């Protein structure tokens, strides 16, 4: 009997949507599902996880776990695997997941598949789609041998089901002793504009074409009007105009909004890899040859300094008409 153990991803001490997505998926398949909850002051989230389908929550709640810590988190997850007799271990494809998943897989002597966008679970047999080569190809992967399956799933891959009110069964996991070889001393939190990019319905994103801080501010009214997430290319982040937390791309955030508005973005494959799953793409760029126009549903060739204020005004007008 398959037993799925899901490692919860948290932000600001709350379970993030990608975790709810994979929980919903497991629940939808009728699979025995548990979860691992790690952090400080997060035990109340056990109820949330239970509401979405995890019957047992393995909790490690301690001030020493407030910040992501490779050694401690790996040990806790390993303990939870043993206690739960899990046959599958699922992560979300976050930076934390990317750091921990291969470590725990290796500890258990098994392989893993990361950043899965499509998944088929037939008992213990799994077929997973993993985008490779900057998303130019998809690898269809299977697990050899009978061991525990370890995998990470990209956010936005599944629908979230309805939550129920369920009392969680909580199992406490021992808090590991501090490993002094790697000590996370502090975290410099970056403010992220607007709402979380991976959960936003609309994302407005800027590239080098925005030309500086002035351009960032020019776009802001549009972001606010649409209640959008405010993203950026690596180039705009490298130039210091946007925080790295806003980076969308192959190695930044991967987003799947209803609408992606690309402003002053050329459309390099490393950026496309992060947003090509958007339902509708609107692009503004002064270069008619920009590769972004090959994938945009609507393209405006023009100076974004002229276009963006008009765009903001027109959308605002149309919005108030429809209310």
């Amino acid at each position, binding site marked *: 009997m398959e037993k799925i153990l899901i490692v919860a991803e948290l932000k600001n001490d709350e379970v993030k949507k990608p975790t709810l997505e994979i929980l919903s998926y497991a629940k939808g398949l009728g699979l025995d599902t548990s979860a691992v909850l790690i952090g400080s002051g997060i035990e109340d989230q056990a109820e949330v996880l239970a509401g979405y389908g995890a019957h047992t929550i393995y909790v490690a709640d301690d001030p020493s776990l407030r910040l992501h810590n490779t050694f401690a988190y790996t040990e806790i997850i390993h303990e939870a695997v043993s206690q739960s007799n899990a046959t599958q271990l699922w992560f979300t494809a976050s930076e934390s997941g*990317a750091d921990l998943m291969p470590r725990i897989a290796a500890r258990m002597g098994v392989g*893993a598949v990361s950043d899965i966008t499509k998944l088929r679970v037939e008992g213990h047999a799994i077929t997973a789609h993993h985008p490779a080569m900057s998303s130019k190809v*998809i690898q269809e992967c299977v697990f050899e041998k009978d061991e525990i399956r370890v995998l990470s799933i990209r956010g936005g891959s599944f629908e979230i089901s309805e939550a129920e009110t369920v009392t969680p069964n909580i199992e406490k996991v021992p808090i590991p002793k501090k490993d002094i070889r790697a*000590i996370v001393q502090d975290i*410099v*939190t970056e403010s992220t504009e607007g709402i979380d990019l991976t959960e936003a319905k609309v994302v407005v994103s800027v590239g080098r074409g925005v030309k500086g801080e002035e351009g960032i501010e020019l776009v802001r009214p549009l972001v606010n009007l649409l209640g959008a997430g405010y993203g950026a290319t690596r180039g705009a982040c490298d130039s210091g105009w946007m925080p790295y937390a806003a980076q969308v791309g192959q190695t930044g955030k991967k987003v799947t*909004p209803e609408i992606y508005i690309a402003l002053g973005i050329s459309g390099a494959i490393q950026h496309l890899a992060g947003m090509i799953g958007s339902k509708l793409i*609107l692009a503004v760029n002064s270069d008619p040859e920009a590769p972004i126009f090959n994938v945009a549903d609507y393209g*405006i060739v023009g*100076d974004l300094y002229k276009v963006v204020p008009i765009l903001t005004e027109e959308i605002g007008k149309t919005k108030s008409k429809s209310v």
Partner: protein
Amino acid sequence: MKIVVLIKQVVDVELNIRVMNDALVEDGLTYVISNWDEIAIETAIQIVELVGGGSITLISIGPDRVQDALRRGLAMGADRAIHVLDAAFDGSDSFAYAKTFAKMLENQDYDIILGGKQAQDTDAGLTMSMLAEFMNLPQVTNVSKVVSVDKDKCTFHRRGDLGNEVIELSLPAVLTPNDSLFEPRMPSLRGLMMVKKKPIETVSLSDIGVDPSLVGKTGRMITVNRLIQPEDRKGGQVFEGEEEEITKQVVKLLAENEIGKESLFT
């Protein structure tokens, strides 16, 4: 400071990537050092400069052409290279790579083990962390800043989900730099000429004590059954002309579009 950088030669993903009969079309493919591995080589060079001395060894696994990648790394500034050449390795997954590197690195006393955070062909991002686990070493993935490096204690920044984590690390350790840590240098003319004097050692799996049944098609944990080429997203309408006019036109079309209507105007 003894540094080793594990590099992978990959197809250049910018050019001629086509899938036919579930596999990559060989015709038109060119090969490069995986981008993040180049950043790792640059990081090694920067750290050696920072601490005032050290040695950099490169290791790569693959067919003959891998020597080109190693030579480029040597031209950038690495000191020596090891090429693992063995047909039995073909078809290996990240697990097999990590096992092989772990065997090669045991008892070698490297202070820092650097590698790409993901390979540009697979985008898997597993090998280096698996290696760190096999060797029971601390790791910092996604390194965004090198603050200080000392024989026993270093400070790095790691880009995590919430921001920059400040990590105090003991050596030996495994590091994977992030995209923006350093810009890989172009080999200088002098660097290119020095390559001839730098040794490239070629070894087989048995030379390094790795059982062939633990790697390749026999030993791998994950199999890629086939490659699928996602359907090219087709471009839509591109408007050129007077900015005000075309922008108004597009907004009108968006209001009539199912998705646009729902997501932009309600």
